[in-house]
C-alpha cells in the first residue's frame, strides 16, 4: 500500500459499506427479511460472500450478518502522522467492499429486474449483462482450464476515446484474455466506447460489459471465486484456499482507466486479496513490493499503448501468441464473433453453394510446405454479397503423420478460421460454412488467408506430428463437387473405423490431466468407448496430443490386468490414477455410477445421478438451468461432485458418452436412463435412436421422461410405468 492509496481505499470502503447498508435497509422496509435475493441461475448464491464467508445469502434477511461482518472489517481512517500499519487493514477494507458491492448488486436485481440483460450478449441496445450465470461460468471456465483464455482483464472506467478503447480491447482479445468491464470515468464507460467504435461485445467475443458502476466489478471477482469452487473443488468458506487458488491460477488484473476514486481504490484493494494487481493510466502512487500478488500490486501512469503488455508482465502471465499472417486481428477471442447477414461480403456453403473441408495425408515429395493456392476466383473477383463454392483441402506430410490424425487436424479448421476477426465458420466436413465480412475484406482479407492461417496454426499446434502442409482452396463448382464426393467416402471410412474400436481390444488408454491447472488432483482416463467428460477429448485426440507433446497432459496408460470387466476396473489404470492424483484417488471404475465412479471435474458436459425410486439414472446437461428429479440443478450438482472427487451415485460425462456402448454399462447401460432434459434429447436424438435400436428398444428416447413430464422422482415414475420403461424391471440399482 501507499499511504495515499490506503487512506483512499479505507474511505471508499466506508462509503460503499454505508451505501450497501442504506440500500439494504430500504429493501428490508419494502420487501421484508424473507424476500429472496440472488444472481440469476447460479448455485453459488452471492459468490464472493459464499466463497469467502461460506454464507449462502438467499434472502434479504441473510444479508444482515454479512453487513455486520463487513462493518467489523472496516478499519479506522489512516491518521495523517504516525499512522498505524495499514496493509492488512486495507486488504480487509477491500474485502468488506466486495461484500458491500455484492449486496448492492443483488438488491439492484431486486429493484430493477430488467436492468441487466441476463444474456450472453446485449439485448435491444441494453449492453449491461450482469453476473455470469453458471452456464456461462462452466462453458467459459473450460477455456480457462485448457489455456485458451489464460485470464481476464477487469477494466474499470473509460479510455480517452472510443478508438483507444477499441485498440486496448482488441489487444486484450489478441492475448486471448477476457475483458470484464465496469464503472465510468467522466460519465463515459469502456463498454459504451466499444459499442461506439463498432466493436461486437458480449461473452462470445470475450468483451463482457458487466455493468455501469464500480459495484459491477464484483461480478468479475465473483466469477473468479466460483472458478475456485467449481474447478478447484474448494469448499465455500475456505477463503484462504480460494484466494491463493486465484493468485496462483487465475491470471486476472485490473486496468484502471481514468480518475481513480475512493471506491475504485477500495475495489482494487479487494482484488489484491485475490492476487489481482491494478495497472492504471493515471499517475496514482505505485505499490511495487511483492507479496500479496505474485509481483507488483499497483503500477501506474502506464501509456495506453503499453497497458496490456505491462499488465501481463505485472501479473506474471505468459501468453504465447503466434503471429498469423493475416490483415485482421486474430485470436480465440474472436471465435464467438458473428458476421451478420448484412455485413457479409462473401459466403461459401450455408445452403447457397457446396462447401467442404478435407484434410488428407500425402507423401513428403507431394507437399510443398506453406504453398497456398486459390484455384478459381478470389474474393476480389466477386462483388459484395456473393456466394462461391469452396473446397478447402489441407494436404499434410511428415514422418510421424498417421491417417488417424487427419480428422483431428481437419477439426481444427473450424476454430482456427473463426479466430480471424470478421471471418465466421460454422459446421465441418461437407456442411462447412464460411462468411467473410465486408470489414475483413476492406482490411485486405482474402480466401488465400484461410490457407495462411491453417499453415501457421497447424504448424504451431501440431508441428511435431507432421513436417509439411499445403492448402488448396477450390472455388469453382466443377472442382469442388468431385472433391466433395471423395471426401464423403473418406468420412464414412473414418467413422466406421472409430466405431469399430472397443475398450476390450485396445490395450492403451490415455490419461488427461489438462484440468490440473484448475482442478488439482483430477485425473480423467479416456478409452475409445468413454470420451472425456468435457466432450472435448476422445481417445484419438489424446493419442495425437501425446504424439505432439510426449510429456504433456495426455499420457498413454497401459490398462493392464482387467480387475472387473463389468464395472471397468483396470490394474494399470488404478496405479496411474493413484500416482497422478497425488494419492487422492486409489481406484475407480470406468462404467459405473454406483461403485467408485470416475472422478468429475467442473468442466463436465453432463452429470448423471442415480434415481433410486425409479431404479434408474438421470442425466442433465449444463445448459439446462431447471430443477431435476435428483433434487438438484446442474449447477448444484457440479458444485457437489466437481473438483476431482469420486462421488458414488453421481458421475460427470460428455454428451457423446451417452450414446457410446459403455455408457454406465456396469449398472445396466443406457436402458437405465429414465430422465434427461428435452433439449439434450433433441441434441443427441439421431445417435441415441441408433444406439437404442441396437439395444432392442428403438423408442427408448420417447420412454424417457423430461422436464415436461416432471422434475421429481414422484412426478416421473407414473410416466415411466405407463411407458413401461425398461429400467423398472431391471435388478435394483442400489
Amino acid at each position, binding site marked *: 500500500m501507499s499511504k495515499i492509496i490506503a487512506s483512499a481505499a479505507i474511505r471508499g470502503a466506508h462509503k460503499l459499506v454505508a451505501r450497501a447498508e442504506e440500500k439494504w435497509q430500504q429493501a428490508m422496509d419494502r420487501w421484508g427479511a424473507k424476500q429472496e435475493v440472488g444472481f440469476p441461475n447460479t448455485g453459488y448464491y452471492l459468490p464472493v460472500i459464499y466463497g469467502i464467508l461460506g454464507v449462502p445469502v438467499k434472502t434479504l434477511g441473510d444479508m444482515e450478518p454479512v453487513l455486520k461482518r463487513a462493518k467489523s472489517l472496516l478499519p479506522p481512517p489512516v491518521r495523517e502522522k504516525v499512522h498505524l500499519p495499514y496493509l492488512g487493514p486495507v486488504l480487509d477494507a477491500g474485502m468488506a467492499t466486495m461484500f458491500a458491492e455484492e449486496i448492492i448488486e443483488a438488491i439492484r436485481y431486486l429493484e430493477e429486474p430488467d436492468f441487466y440483460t441476463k444474456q450472453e450478449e446485449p439485448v435491444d441496445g441494453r449492453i449491461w449483462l450482469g453476473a455470469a450465470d453458471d452456464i456461462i461460468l462452466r462453458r467459459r471456465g473450460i477455456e480457462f482450464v485448457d489455456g485458451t483464455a489464460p485470464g481476464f482483464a477487469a477494466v474499470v472506467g473509460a479510455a480517452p476515446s472510443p478508438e483507444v478503447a477499441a485498440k486496448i480491447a482488441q489487444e486484450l482479445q489478441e492475448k486471448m484474455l477476457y475483458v470484464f468491464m465496469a464503472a465510468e470515468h467522466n460519465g463515459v464507460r469502456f463498454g459504451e466506447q466499444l459499442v461506439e467504435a463498432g466493436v461486437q461485445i458480449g461473452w462470445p467475443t470475450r468483451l463482457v460489459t458487466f455493468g455501469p458502476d464500480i459495484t459491477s466489478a464484483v461480478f468479475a471477482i465473483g466469477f473468479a471465486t466460483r472458478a475456485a469452487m467449481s474447478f478447484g473443488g474448494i469448499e465455500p468458506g475456505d477463503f484462504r484456499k480460494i484466494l491463493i487458488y486465484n493468485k496462483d491460477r487465475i491470471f486476472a488484473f485490473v486496468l484502471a482507466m481514468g480518475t481513480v476514486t475512493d471506491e475504485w481504490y477500495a475495489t482494487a484493494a479487494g482484488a489484491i*486479496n485475490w492476487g489481482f494487481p491494478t495497472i492504471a493510466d493515471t499517475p496514482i502512487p505505485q505499490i511495487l*513490493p*511483492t*507479496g500479496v500478488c505474485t509481483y507488483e500490486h499497483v503500477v501506474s501512469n502506464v501509456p495506453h499503448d503499453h497497458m496490456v503488455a505491462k499488465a501481463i508482465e505485472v501479473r506474471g502471465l505468459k501468453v504465447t501468441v503466434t503471429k498469423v499472417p493475416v490483415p485482421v486481428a486474430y485470436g480465440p477471442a474472436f471465435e464467438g464473433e458473428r458476421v451478420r447477414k448484412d455485413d457479409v461480403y462473401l459466403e461459401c456453403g450455408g445452403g447457397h453453394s457446396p462447401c467442404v473441408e478435407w484434410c488428407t495425408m500425402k507423401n513428403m515429395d507431394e507437399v510443398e510446405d506453406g504453398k497456398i493456392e486459390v484455384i478459381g476466383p478470389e474474393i476480389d473477383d466477386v462483388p459484395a454479397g456473393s456466394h462461391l463454392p469452396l473446397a478447402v483441402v489441407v494436404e499434410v506430410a511428415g514422418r510421424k503423420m498417421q491417417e488417424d490424425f487427419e480428422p483431428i487436424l481437419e477439426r481444427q479448421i473450424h476454430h482456427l478460421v473463426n479466430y480471424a476477426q470478421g471471418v465466421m465458420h460454422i459446421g465441418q466436413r461437407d456442411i462447412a460454412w464460411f462468411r467473410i465480412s465486408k470489414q475483413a475484406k476492406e482490411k485486405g482479407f482474402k480466401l488465400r488467408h484461410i490457407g495462411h492461417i491453417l499453415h501457421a496454426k497447424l504448424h504451431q499446434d501440431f508441428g511435431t506430428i507432421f513436417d509439411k502442409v499445403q492448402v488448396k482452396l477450390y472455388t469453382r463448382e466443377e472442382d469442388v463437387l468431385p472433391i466433395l464426393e471423395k471426401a464423403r467416402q473418406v468420412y464414412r471410412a473414418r467413422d466406421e473405423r472409430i466405431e469399430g474400436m472397443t475398450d476390450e481390444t485396445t490395450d492403451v488408454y490415455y490419461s488427461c490431466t489438462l484440468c490440473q491447472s484448475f482442478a*488439482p488432483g483430477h485425473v480423467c482416463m479416456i478409452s475409445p468407448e468413454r470420451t472425456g467428460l468435457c466432450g472435448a477429448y476422445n481417445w484419438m485426440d489424446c493419442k495425437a496430443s501425446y504424439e505432439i507433446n510426449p510429456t504433456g497432459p495426455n499420457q498413454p496408460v497401459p490398462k493392464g490386468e482387467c480387475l472387473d470387466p463389468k464395472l471397468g476396473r483396470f490394474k494399470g489404470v488404478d496405479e496411474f490414477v493413484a500416482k497422478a492424483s497425488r494419492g487422492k484417488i486409489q481406484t475407480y471404475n470406468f462404467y459405473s455410477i454406483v461403485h467408485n465412479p470416475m472422478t468429475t471435474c467442473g468442466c463436465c458436459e453432463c452429470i448423471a445421478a442415480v434415481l433410486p425410486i425409479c431404479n434408474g439414472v438421470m442425466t442433465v446437461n449444463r445448459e439446462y438451468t431447471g430443477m431435476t428429479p435428483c433434487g438438484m440443478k446442474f449447477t448444484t450438482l457440479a458444485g457437489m461432485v466437481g473438483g476431482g472427487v469420486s462421488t458414488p451415485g453421481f458421475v460427470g460425462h460428455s454428451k457423446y458418452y451417452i450414446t457410446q456402448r459403455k455408457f454406465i454399462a456396469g449398472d445396466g447401460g443406457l436402458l437405465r436412463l429414465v430422465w434427461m432434459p428435452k433439449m439434450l434429447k433433441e441434441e443427441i436424438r439421431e445417435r441415441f435412436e441408433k444406439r437404442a435400436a441396437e439395444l432392442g428398444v428403438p423408442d427408448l428416447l420417447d420412454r424417457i421422461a423430461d422436464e415436461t413430464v416432471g422434475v421429481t422422482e414422484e412426478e416421473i415414475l407414473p410416466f415411466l410405468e405407463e411407458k413401461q420403461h425398461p429400467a423398472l424391471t431391471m435388478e435394483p440399482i442400489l
Partner: protein
Amino acid sequence: MAENTDRSVCPATVQLLGKAQQEGVSTAFFRADQVKPCPIGADGSCCRNCAMGPCRVLLPRGKSDLEVEVTGVCGATTDTISARNFLRMIAAGAAAHSDHGRAVAETLIAAAKGEAPGYSIKDEYKLMKLALDFGIEVGDRPIEDIAVDVGRAALAQFSQQEGELAFIKKAPLKRQEIWRNLGIVPRGIDREIVEIMHRTHMGVDQDPESLLMHGMRAALADGWGGSMIGTELQDVLFGTPQPILGQVNLGVLKPDHVNVIVHGHEPLLSEMIVLAAEDPEMLALARAKGAQGINVAGICCTANEILMRHGIPIAGNFLQQELAIVTGVVDAMVVDVQCIMQSLPKVAQCYHTRIITTSNRARIPGATHIEFHEHDAVNAAKAIVRAAIEAFPHRTGRVEVPPHQVDFVAGFSHETIEYLLGGVFRSSYRPLNDNIINGRIRGVAGVVGCNNPRVEHDAVHVAMVKELIKNDVLVLQTGCSAIACAKAGLMTPEAASQYAGGGLAEVCETVGIPPVIHMGSCVDNSRILMAATAMVKEGGLGDDISDLPAAGAAPEWMSEKAISIGQYFVASGVFTVFGVTWPTTGSEKFSRLLFEGLEEKVKARWAYEPDPIKAAKLMIEHIDAKRKALGIDKARERVLYDMAMRRELEAL
C-alpha cells in the same frame, strides 16, 4: 569529567542530568565515573566459587591462554573459570525470565479459578493454541477449565525432569534436530538452571566446551521455555498486542497530574495499576488533592508491556529511572522485579516521591513495601495509587519536565505481523519473505537489550539501528533498546523515508510500518524467535533459522538476562553481536569457542564489537553471506507462468 551532552543522545536525559547535578543528586551516570569496572571481573578471570580463592587467573600482559596456562588453586584453567562465570550469568538471566514466566502461569491459574479478581482471559484463541501445544483436551470444556490446565501444564514445564520442553516443537524441524543431536534440548526449566549451579560448583564440570553445551541448554530453557511461557500466557491474560500509538520520553509526565511510574518487568501489577488509575473513586480523590487526573507512565520492560497493550506512555528506559524522579513530578514509583536500582529511595529522598516495592522477591531498604498478590490485586493497586495521590500535595523543590516526548507505533506481536502483511484473509509472512528474496529488504536484525552507563546512553542503539535500516535491514526490537530508538524517532512510519534505504522504505510504505519494529519487553524476545521461525516456515529462505539473512545484537547490554538471551539466540541459529564489554576476554580459548567454535555446533556464533557502526557492518556482512548461500544475492528473473507451469503447481 564528561560533559552531560556526551553522556546521552537523549535530550531529556541530558537536561535532567544537569538538574540532578545542580541539586546534588547521585545517578548511575555519575557513579559510573567514580566506580571503575573491576578489571579482573570484567575479563571474567576471577573465580570465587570456593574458599580456596578467590583466585585471579590473570595472564601476563600481552599473552593469551593459548600460549600460557594460569590456574587457580584447584587447578582450574582460565578458560574453565571463564566458562563457569559465563554460565552463571546465563543461569541468573534464565532464572529471572523464567521466574517471571512462572508468576504469570500462577496468575493465569488463579484468574481461571476466579481467585484473582480483576484478571480475566483476554485472548481465548491463543489459549486454545496453547492447549494444543500442551496436548490439553479442548472439546466443549469451559474456557476456565482449559485455562487452569494450560496454566498447570506451563508450571509443570518448570519442574519437569525429563523429556523435552513443549515449545521446542515450535522451532523449525531442522533446528530441533540440531539440538537433539547435540543433546541440548532442555528437559525442564528449573532443572537446567540448577544444573548450571551444580556444574559450576567447585570441582564438577571443568571442560569449557561441555560447560558451554549445558549453558546453551539452560539458555534454550529460557528462550523457548520460561520467556516464551511468560509472553504467551501474558497474551492470554492481557491480550495479544496489536499496533498502537505510543508516546515516549520524560515529557509524558504531567506536572498537574498525579504521576505514577510503574517500573520493572511484570505486567501483572502494572495492568492493575492502569485500572486503578481509571477508577472514579481514585480520580475523585486525585482531584480533591488538586490534581487534574492520574497519569500512569512506565519505565523499562513494565513500560513496554503496558504500552503494547494499552498505549500507556513510556517515561524512559533503564538509565532514566533516577532521572524521572529528578523531574520532581513523580508522586510514586512502583517497582517489582529486575533492573531496579537500589539508589531509587536515595534519589527519592531529595524529592517527595514514594518508592513502593511490591514483590516479595524484591525489597529495597528505604522503600515502602506494599506487597502485591494476584488474589488481592485490585486493592493493592488502589492502595498504591492512593499513596501516590497522597504524595501529590507534598511535592517539594523545583519541577522540571523536559519538553521531550515522541510519538511512535508499537504493538507488534508475531501474530500481528502475520495479520498486517495480508489482512484477515491472506495473513502470512509471504510479503516479508518475498521482499527479502527480491532484495528490497536485505535482512532482519533483532536489536535488543539494556542501557549501560559505560557507554553513551542510547547512542549505541540508535547509531547501530540507523546504520542497519540505512542498509535495508528491517530491525525488530524489544526492551530498553526499543525505547531508545522510539525516543530517537525511528519507530514512526515517517522514519522509513527519512532513515531507511530505498528498498526497505518502499516495503515500509507498502505495509505502513516503521522500519524499526517494537515487539515488546525482554521476555518478548521469544516473539522474535517465533517470527524467525514463521519466516523459515513460510519458505524460500532455507529450512532453519540459521539459514535466514538475520542477525541479533545487544549493543548496550548490562544484565545477566542479556547474556541468557544472547545465548539462546545463538543456540537458535542467530549470529549475535554484543557491545560495551565482553565477559570472557580473559580467556582467548573460551572466547574463540564462543566467537568461532560454536558455528560448527549450532551454525551460529557470538561476536563482540563495541563500535555500533562496525557491529552493524558485521551483521550486514553476515546477512549478505546468508543471502549468497541462499542464492538470493543476485536479482532474479521474473517468472511468467503459462498453462503447463500452472499444472505443475501443487494442489493447495
